[in-house]
C-alpha cells in the first residue's frame, strides 16, 4: 500500500496540525477501507516525532505537543483495533504515570507522558496528587511495565519513595520498573529511594523507559539506571 495515498497524507497532516477530528476520521477511514494499517502507524509515528522535534527546537510549545499527543493516542486506539485482523500492534510497553501525592504540578508529568506516547508506549496518566496505594493498584490493574513518578516539590518527594516501599511490602516490586523525576529529584535521591531509573528531562525519560523494557534484567534493578 502506498503510504503517500490521500488518506495517509490526511492522517499525517491532521497530526501535524493537531486536528483531532480530522486525524480520527482519517484513521477510521484507513481501517474501514482495509488499507495497510501498519503503514498508517508508521506515518502517524513519523508525524508525531516531527512535532516532538519541533517542540525541542522551540518551534512549537507545550499545548501543541499535548494536543498532538492526545490526537495520536486516539488514532492509535483506532489503528490498533484495525490491526487486530492484521497481526496486532507492537507497543513498546505500558507506563502508568502520575504526579505523586501532595503535588499538583502537571507540566513535567504531561511532558513525559507525551514523549512516552510519541515513543510508542501505551500511557495511563493518573493525573496529579495521586496517593501511593492508588498508583500501585492502577499499575497492577493495567498490567503496566513501568511506573513513572513525578514530583516538583521536596515535600512530595517522600511519596515517590513510599510507592516503592508499598510495592516492596506488597510483594510487587518485581512486577514494575519504577522511574522517578522532577525539578528537585536528584539522581542521588533516586538511588536512595531504590528507583530503577532516573532522567533529567522528558525526552530522556522516554528513552530511559525504552531502555528499561528492552533490558534483559527484570526489576528491581541492583543499580539505578541514569539516562542523560
Amino acid at each position, binding site marked *: 500500500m502506498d503510504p503517500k495515498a490521500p488518506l495517509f497524507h490526511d492522517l499525517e497532516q491532521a497530526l501535524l496540525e493537531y486536528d483531532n477530528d480530522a486525524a480520527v476520521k482519517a484513521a477510521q477511514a484507513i481501517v474501514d477501507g482495509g488499507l495497510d494499517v501498519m503503514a498508517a502507524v508508521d506515518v502517524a509515528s513519523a508525524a508525531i516525532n516531527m512535532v516532538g522535534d519541533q517542540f525541542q527546537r522551540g518551534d512549537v510549545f507545550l499545548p501543541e505537543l499535548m494536543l498532538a499527543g492526545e490526537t495520536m493516542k486516539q488514532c492509535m486506539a483506532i489503528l490498533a483495533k484495525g490491526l487486530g485482523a492484521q497481526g496486532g500492534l507492537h507497543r513498546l510497553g505500558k507506563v502508568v504515570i502520575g504526579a505523586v501525592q501532595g503535588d499538583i504540578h502537571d*507540566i513535567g508529568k*504531561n511532558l513525559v507522558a507525551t514523549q512516552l506516547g510519541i515513543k510508542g508506549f501505551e500511557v495511563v496518566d493518573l493525573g496529579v496528587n495521586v496517593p501511593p496505594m492508588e498508583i500501585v493498584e492502577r499499575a497492577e490493574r493495567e498490567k503496566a511495565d513501568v511506573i513513572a513518578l513525578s514530583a516538583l516539590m521536596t515535600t512530595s518527594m517522600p511519596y515517590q519513595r513510599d510507592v516503592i516501599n508499598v510495592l516492596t511490602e506488597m510483594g510487587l516490586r518485581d512486577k514494575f520498573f519504577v522511574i522517578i523525576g522532577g525539578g528537585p529529584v536528584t539522581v542521588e535521591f533516586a538511588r536512595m529511594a531504590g528507583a530503577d531509573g532516573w532522567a533529567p528531562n522528558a525526552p530522556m525519560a522516554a528513552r530511559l523507559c525504552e531502555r528499561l523494557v528492552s533490558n534483559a534484567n527484570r526489576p528491581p534493578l541492583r543499580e539505578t539506571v541514569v539516562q542523560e
Partner: protein
Amino acid sequence: MAINREKLLTVLDRAHKGPICKQFDWDTRVIPRSIATKLKEYGLQKRCDPANPVNQDLELADRFFQAALDLAAEVGMLCLDTQRVIKFSREELLAGLEAAPAEFTLGDGKQAAMFRHRGLADPTPPIWVSPLSIAVSEDVFLPLVEGIAAVPEVDCLEGPSLQTVWGADLRAGSPYELLAGKLQADLFYEAIRRAGRTGIGLYAVGTSPTHYGVLGGYGIPGGYRPAHDIVLVLSQVEIKTSYENLFKVAQAYNCGGMTYGGSWSMIGGYAGGPEGSALSCIACTILLYNVYQCVNGASFPYDLHYMGNCGRSALWSLSLVFEALSRNTHLCLNSVLNQTAGPATEMLLYESAVGMTALAACGTTSCTGPRSAGGKYSNHITPLEVRFAGEVFKKAAGMTIGQANDVANCLLPKYEALLGQAPKGQSFAECYDVAALKPSAEWQGMYDKVKGEAVKAGLPLV
C-alpha cells in the same frame, strides 16, 4: 489592607457557579488560543528582542498591558477543584486593582519594611525578601537563617524550607505540614533573635506548599503574626487556582492578615513563547489581585528549557511584564528571580547581577530570591549570594532601563552558554564555616571578583 469579605464570598461563589471548563481544555485550547488571539489582535507577535534583554519599548509594554486586561476579562481564572472559571468584568478587574494598596508595611519596630509602588528608574530602594523556599536540613537551618537575617540588605524573610520536621520526612498534604507551619515560625524567631533582627516581616509558610502550613502556623499563639507577616498564596500555572489557595485566603481573612499572590508562566509552556508568557503573566497578575485581594505579588516568566529567567528571552519577557504593570497600576509588585547556578560559582552572582538590576530598573517594589542552583539541591543556599543580590537590587534603584540593558549585555556573555548546564556549586556547609558564619576564601574571592566585574559593567556597587 484587610481582606474584603464580600469580595471573598463573591470569588468563592464564582468558583462554584462559574462556567465549567475541563483542565485539559483550559491548558491546551482556552489559554493558548486566547493568548494567540490577543497577541495577534494587538500586534504583539514576534516582538522579543534578545539583543535588548531589558525591553526598551515602553509603548509596547503599555500595549501588552491593555491586551492582558482584555485577556484577563475574557478568560478569568480556573478553579481546579470545581473545574469552573472565576470570571470578572473588565470594570471589576480595574476596581480590584484600584482597591489594592500603593503601600503597606511588614514587620514592626526598627525592622518594619515599608513597601511602596515603584516606577521605572525609581530611586526608592526596593524591598529584598530572601531567600526562596529552598529545602534545608534541620541541622543547619538555624545558623543558615541567622546568617541570612544578619545580611543588612534583607528586609523580610520567606525561606528557606524545612526538609524534615524533628527528623521526620515532611510530606505535602499530611499532618507533618501542620506541624511544620509552627516549627518554621519557632525557628525563624530564634534565628532572627540571634541575628538581632527581631520584628522582621515574614512570608508564611514557605516550607508548606499546601494550606496546612498556614493553618498550622499563621495567626496561632506563637506563630506568624497577622499584623506583621503575610500569607503566601501561589497560584498554579497557567492562570489557575485551587481550594488550597482559597483556604489560605480564608485563613488570612479570619486572622485579619494580608496575602501575597504569586504565580509564573513558563516560556515554552502553555502560554507559548516569550511574548505569550509575558501576556499571560500580566493577565494573571491582574487576576491575582482580584481573586486573592493581595497587597503584594505578581506572576513572572521563566524558561521551561533551563528552568530559570536570567537568559535573554526570559529577561526580555520579565522586564516587559514589570514595565507594563508598573506603568499602568499602582501595585506593590513582587518578582522572583530564578538563578540556575549554585553557591560558590561565579555564574550565580552574574545571573543575580543581571536579573536584579533589570528588576530594580523596571519598577518592582520587591523581589524574592535567590533561587540558588535552581532550588534543586538541599542546603544549596548561603548568606553570601543573598547579600550580593540584595546589594545589587538596592544599589540599582534609580538606574534606567537603558542602563540595565547595558549591564545585561555586558554580563550575559559570561554565563548564558551555560544556562542549560549550570554548575551545581557547593552546599552551605561546603563553602561556609557554619559556626562562624563566614564564607570560604574561595567563595569570598568569587564574590569580590564578580562585584568588581559588575562595577565595570556599570553597577554602582561602591
